């Protein structure tokens, strides 16, 4: 066999082997991803003292105090933020097209000092300095590349009307839904239920991929103030029974 034919044959053989190996790696990755799917619905009652042990703490700027507290015959998650921003993060993989619902109960005891204005206003460039919320819940949709990861945030805001959808000043991939508004229910437990499939379509105009994580955060780093909120009975990934 002429030399160059041999070189060519060996080269194409090598390329074939690389392709087969890459395909195998991708196949194993797909299998593993499916095996990691969560048992649904996942309920976080925050009733055990060690209920936070399954959550990861993610510190942005300073540490928010998250703790399980007891009061009036119930246990709940308390978040207390003083000039700080950190969240608790839970990895949970499921398809929101099959299990689109999420619900929780929350109460705000103290709002951050200043509230933001709507995205797109002339004051938009300063909006990032007011991006603090007494209570917020994240649903995170990871993508193959981190910069394409999308996120829905459900917030309780003092000023913005309920139903408002705004884009985060940090990224266009983060959409905030005002689920509860005003001070009327301060100190009272409020039930919230959302269809993340519909919310995602409303926010991004297309169907979502798989959910990869949820998170909770109470933050006051931008407004340099204090906020306090409680959360309980978080239920993730169930079908809409209505």
């Amino acid at each position, binding site marked *: 066999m002429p*030399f*160059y034919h041999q*070189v*060519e044959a060996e*080269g194409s053989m*090598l*390329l074939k082997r*690389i392709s087969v190996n*890459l395909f195998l790696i991708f196949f194993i990755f797909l299998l593993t991803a499916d095996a990691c799917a969560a048992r649904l619905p996942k309920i976080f009652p925050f009733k055990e003292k060690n209920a936070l042990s399954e959550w*990861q703490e*993610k510190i*942005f700027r300073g540490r928010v105090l998250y703790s399980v507290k007891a009061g009036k015959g119930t246990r709940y998650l308390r978040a207390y933020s003083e000039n700080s*921003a*950190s*969240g608790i*993060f839970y990895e949970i993989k499921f398809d929101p097209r099959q299990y689109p619902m999420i619900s929780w109960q929350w109460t705000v005891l103290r709002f951050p000092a200043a509230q933001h204005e709507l995205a797109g206003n002339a004051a938009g460039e300063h909006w990032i300095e007011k*991006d603090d919320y007494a209570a917020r819940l*994240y649903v*995170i949709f*990871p993508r*193959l*590349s*981190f*910069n394409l*990861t999308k*996120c829905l*945030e459900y917030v309780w805001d003092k000023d913005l009307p309920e139903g408002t959808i705004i884009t*985060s000043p*940090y*990224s266009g*991939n*983060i959409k905030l839904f005002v689920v509860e508004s005003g001070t009327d229910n301060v100190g009272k437990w409020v039930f919230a239920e959302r269809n993340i499939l519909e919310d995602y379509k409303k926010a991004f105009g297309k169907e979502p991929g798989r959910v990869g*994580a949820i*998170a909770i*955060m109470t933050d006051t780093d931008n407004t340099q103030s204090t906020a306090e909120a409680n959360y309980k009975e978080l239920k993730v990934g169930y079908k809409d029974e209505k």
Partner: protein
Amino acid sequence: MRKIKFINTPVQNKTLLLVFAAAVIPMAIVALCLYYLIFNMLAWQMGIPEMVAYNLIPVARKVNIILLVSLPIALLAIWLTALELSHRIAGPIYRLEKELDIMIAGKRQGPIKLRSRDELKALADKINKLMEKSK
């Protein structure tokens, strides 16, 4: 030393492409895997999307700019290296074929001459010995 590095023969074209692909494909795979792994793992470790947008995306943008600038330089360097390597292999084959054609046509007798650093010098020497024997 041969001045013309690209003699445009099928052997050189194939060797050139093969050497270039053999260098670029694994490099691209490793670089992409590293890029993907490092940034995605960091993003997942940060968790909170605002944290990722505020801290990681600006870094990724800087890295992308550096890659955009350095990638053409790296590819050019690989291409030049591939050209040099392909020429070291294709040049002597071309020369050997040419010498043999001249001898078959009866235009010249005597040994095939290759440069001492040529890859196929040993093969040429053996052909010369064989021709000596068969005289």
